[in-house]
């Protein structure tokens, strides 16, 4: 029941703030029609996909999901462009054989559950550094200032966090 309410909450927040979310996507992807694709993708994930979960700050979470999908779209567009030029034939084959089925909300939801668990189990300080780096987009120097430690230590902690999360690769096999 709680989860249902959370999903309704995310959907309502999304709809009420659609314009602002569109602006976030547009700023990253540039073109309006791609921004709309991003919003559509984000909406589906937030309402019935991996991101349909109980969160403390629904609006902030909607922004986070939109921003990350927009960045992922941009990355794909840039890399696919170069890839297709070289190897038009193989794109479909590789995508089909990569074993990723992100259309399947259930599978992605389980992957995300596992990643959340791994992040939650990082040492407290490492987790804090990771979140400032990944979610707040702070530079290593800014994180060091905020936590009162050296930038070198921040760098080590980010690498540790990434190495731990990297172990999630087994989930894809």
């Amino acid at each position: 029941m709680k989860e249902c309410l959370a999903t309704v909450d995310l959907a309502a927040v999304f709809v009420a703030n659609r314009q602002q979310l569109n602006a976030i996507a547009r700023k990253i992807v540039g073109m309006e029609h791609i921004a709309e694709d991003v919003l559509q993708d984000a909406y589906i994930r937030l309402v019935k996909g991996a991101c349909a979960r109980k969160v403390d700050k629904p609006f902030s979470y909607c922004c986070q999901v939109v921003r990350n999908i927009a960045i992922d779209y941009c990355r794909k567009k840039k890399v696919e462009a170069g890839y297709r030029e070289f190897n038009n034939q193989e794109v479909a084959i590789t995508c089909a054989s990569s074993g990723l089925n992100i259309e399947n909300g259930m599978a992605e939801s389980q992957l995300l559950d596992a990643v959340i668990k791994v992040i939650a189990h990082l040492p407290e300080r490492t987790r804090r550094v990771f979140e400032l780096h990944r979610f707040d987009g702070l530079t290593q120097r800014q994180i060091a200032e905020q936590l009162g430690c050296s930038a070198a230590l921040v760098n080590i902690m980010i690498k540790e966090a990434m190495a731990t999360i990297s172990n999630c690769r087994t989930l894809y096999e």
Partner: protein
Amino acid sequence: MTAADKDKIWETAWQWAQYPVHDTPIEHQDIQRLNAWLNADLLHRQAYDKATHLWLMTGFAPPTATI
């Protein structure tokens, strides 16, 4: 293909997944390097697809910090 080879491919893919491709001009030499690497072997491409998806998942994790 040994386990060590596979690890190396994954490691490279995971590094690329963390690279700000979206923020880098398409003509930048790093993007060209990435495309060359992806085109060199189907396994590179498959590892990259998984690594970028995992990276996206880290972006979907709700912050746990209560501050």
